[in-house]
């Protein structure tokens, strides 16, 4: 591996640490407020994922 390649990989590793931490701090991947409302109910639409909360009741197995 050349010195240049190693430097690029180390830079990439730095980016791989800083970018996810920054994105995590910014709450990326989480739900965000939406201006959109459901046409029928008028309720604010929930945007984004619920994260790792599992499923819901199965309604009987």
């Amino acid at each position, binding site marked *: *591996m050349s010195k240049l390649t190693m430097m690029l990989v180390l830079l990439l590793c730095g980016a791989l640490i800083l*970018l996810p931490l920054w994105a995590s701090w910014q*709450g990326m991947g989480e739900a965000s407020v939406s201006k959109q409302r459901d046409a029928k109910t008028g309720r604010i639409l929930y945007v984004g994922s619920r994260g790792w909360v599992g499923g819901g009741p199965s309604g*009987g197995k």
Partner: protein
Amino acid sequence: MKAFEPIKVHNCKNCGHPMRQFNPDTQMMVCESCGTRFGESVPPKYKPEAPLNPLFKLHELFEKNGVTWQIIGCQSYAGSVEEWDSEDKAWERTPWSFHTWWIINEAREIAWISQDKTGYSWSHKKTVTSGIPAGDRSYEVGSWTMISAVGEFSYIPREAEQVRSYEKDGRSLSILLDENGGNQEIEAFHDVNLDLMDLLTSFGKQSIVDGLKRAKVAMYAAFASIAALVIGFFVMQGFEKTLITTPTVTVNSQSLKKVIPLGEFKMENKGLIELDFLANLGGGNGSFDAEVVVSDSDKTPVAELPLSLWRESGRDSDGPWTESQYRDAPRINLPAADVYTLSLVPDSLKQWRSISLRGKVTRNVVSLLPIIIGGVVALLLGLFLSVRRRKYVRRETGVGL
């Protein structure tokens, strides 16, 4: 490094190739050009050839611990290794092969380097001090047939000579068999593994060693990135701040569709909050669904978050089972600094008469998804660099799994 002076040069009787003799005790020479043995004029049916190797080549020089060595011959063996499998209570046979490189130094001392697919080892000749451990299950027993011999040797190797070996903890007993399968010669060796980086340095391949070291640093950096992400995630969690803790509220069928105020909290900046609700569920199965409404200072709802709590149980072929969700923690990115009002609107309550729940609002919460994605990418990068490095080592040394 300067090549050694041969003590004699013999011209091959078949092809005329000058066979240089470096070892004064040599008894047999095999022409590296046509495979004809010294003293013979007819080449063998199958031409013996030294294996292709990026480092070891006939007459190549290398330096080890300040001593210059020259490669003068190579024997290749194929066969199998038997190892006692204590679980199956049987000898387990594995096809294997190896090469023995004959080397000589300036003082005309002979040494051997053994090569198999796992690496190289320096074979130190030792005095035979024990009997043949036939039947001893602690040894690996090898049965070998010589398939090729090129260069010069201090004994006369027979065509397809048979060798049996007993090896344990790097010490081996090598038995050369005669035509009738009887023991002809017994030798003991102590094999010491050679570090591949040291070996590359010995052959003057310092630039390759430097490249491999850099690849190792890059690989470790990629794997260390995963640890840095995990540590960073936990450190950031230390900055979480509870904004409000809601009073415990009890919800029953009369509370449905009614707004239950839970309190106010102030956000100094936009950001992610977590609304963590913990419930004391009623007895038995049931479910509760509600909306958590976050309104701004103008009393305009800016977020309606579904909250779902439930318990169910049953029986299947594995016996009774119960699953429940007594805690729900929806998260939302609030768009601006403001004083927000939190309220709960129960939607449905099934099978339970009532449930009580309390919650808290936390800010500076960190999301896990970017950490997972970053960690996976770092892991893939580390594995990619590891595989590339191994391939490079294999290409430059001829060994490595």
